[in-house]
């Protein structure tokens, strides 16, 4: 029971952390374009404004999907360790839970989006799933290398392995793996080069086309928590996690800002360019990294 309460605390902490960092990043991007960005708590205001509006419902599957999406993502966030000491459920935070419980969130949103009856939404969902197919395989190959090297699949143990004396972070130990990790992170977050499924210009914001007040607010909360899960997954896998909260916050902020800045100078790929891109270089890098690390054992 305590674990569940801690888990809910972590999920809430993740939501608050990511929303404020998202607001700060909007300000940074504003300054990048020589204009005052919005207030740092603008994302909070957006979400609470959405929750206060009265919107539209297209049938029971439309609402059930949104609830299932948010529920799935909150469940994933509850498993996420913040630092090597703060984790909701001792040694149950398995790596594969994050990859697959995210799929529950994605399935919930996909179901309610195509249940809304709008062709834009189904096209958006199709693009989201294709992008998922694209960035998931290279990322899991790198994760396979990490799990094989550390012989643990629970995140806290991987963190402790990297923080141990002789070992360096996996971003340095597996350089190619680190690059594939960053690319896959940008694919997961749906940042600009791979933003094909929320493309506001082409398919009117993809799956979110039919969502209004509270459904859209809940989906925004879900998006914030998903970003928290993916960025902290990257921090734990590649940057050696964190022994204290402050270290976690710094690493988290740096990773998210770097990815956000990269995304703000990029255009947007077409959907089959995304798939072709991910199955060309990142997969090649992931496989060579795996072969080097597992069979030859050259780990920096």
């Amino acid at each position: 029971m305590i674990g569940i309460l801690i888990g809910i605390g972590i999920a809430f902490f993740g939501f608050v952390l990511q929303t404020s960092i998202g607001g700060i990043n909007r300000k940074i991007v504003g300054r990048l374009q020589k204009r005052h960005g919005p207030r740092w708590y603008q994302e909070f205001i957006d979400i609470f404004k959405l929750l206060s509006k009265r919107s539209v419902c297209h049938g029971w599957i439309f609402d059930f999907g949104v609830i299932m999406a948010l529920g799935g993502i909150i469940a994933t966030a509850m498993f996420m360790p913040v630092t090597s000491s703060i984790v909701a459920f001792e040694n149950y935070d398995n790596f594969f839970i994050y990859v697959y419980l995210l799929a529950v969130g994605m399935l919930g949103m996909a179901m309610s989006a195509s249940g809304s009856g709008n062709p834009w939404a189904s096209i958006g969902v199709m693009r989201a799933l294709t992008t998922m197919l694209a960035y998931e395989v290279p990322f899991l190959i790198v994760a396979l290398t990490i799990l094989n090297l550390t012989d643990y699949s629970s995140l806290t143990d991987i963190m402790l392995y990297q923080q141990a004396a002789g070992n360096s972070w996996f971003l340095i130990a597996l350089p190619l793996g680190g690059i594939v990790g960053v690319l896959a992170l940008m694919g997961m977050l749906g940042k600009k080069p791979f933003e094909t499924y929320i493309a506001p210009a082409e398919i009117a914001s993809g799956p979110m086309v039919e969502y209004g007040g509270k459904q859209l607010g809940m989906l925004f909360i879900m998006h914030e928590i998903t970003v928290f899960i993916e960025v902290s997954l990257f921090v734990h896998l590649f940057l050696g996690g964190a022994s204290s909260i402050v270290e976690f916050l710094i690493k988290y902020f740096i990773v998210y800002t770097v990815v956000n800045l990269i995304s703000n100078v990029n255009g947007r790929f077409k959907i089959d360019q995304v798939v072709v891109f991910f199955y060309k270089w990142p997969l090649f890098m992931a496989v060579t990294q795996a072969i080097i690390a597992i069979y030859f054992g050259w780990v920096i």
Partner: protein
Amino acid sequence: MLSTKFTKKDDVVKTETDRKWWEIGDYFRRNSLWMLMYCTGCCAIELPPSMTAAYDMERLGMGPMATPRQADILLVSGYLSPKTLRRLIYTYEQMSEPRYVVALGSCPINGGIYHDSHVVINKLNQYIPVDVYVGGCMPNPESLLNGFVDLMQGIKNKTAMGWKRYHEHYDWYKANQKHSLGELIIHDEFHE
């Protein structure tokens, strides 16, 4: 506090808390207005400069949104022909409550330079409730942002109640639409 002599105890509390909640909601609605830019006329060209570096709209918490379901403001920029007005009303009814309409330029006010044309309507709030007019034949971004700030003030002291007026006088608006546009939903060869 309202005098509690006539209204029952829990009624007062209920209406009071609702009003409090509504005011908090107003703060959030005021500071994050999302626009559905219905770029019908020539005033639409004023919007990009109001979003970029010089007159940054985002610091007021405003930004463009792709669909009516997500938007709060319906930005009517410029003249409206009966054809566009039919689509505009269809989109207006798809927006989520509470919704506001900001009309740019003098064409929605009194038909502007096309006031005597057979295809341009002369008064927009005859068909849909308009909360803020921004006059000028192509108002510059400053007056545009001034209009948005007026809208925020209107939301704050609860004068921007266009959507409530639309519900209360629904049949009056529908009668006007019928008079000027005839049939609202079109069934012809191109919309099978």
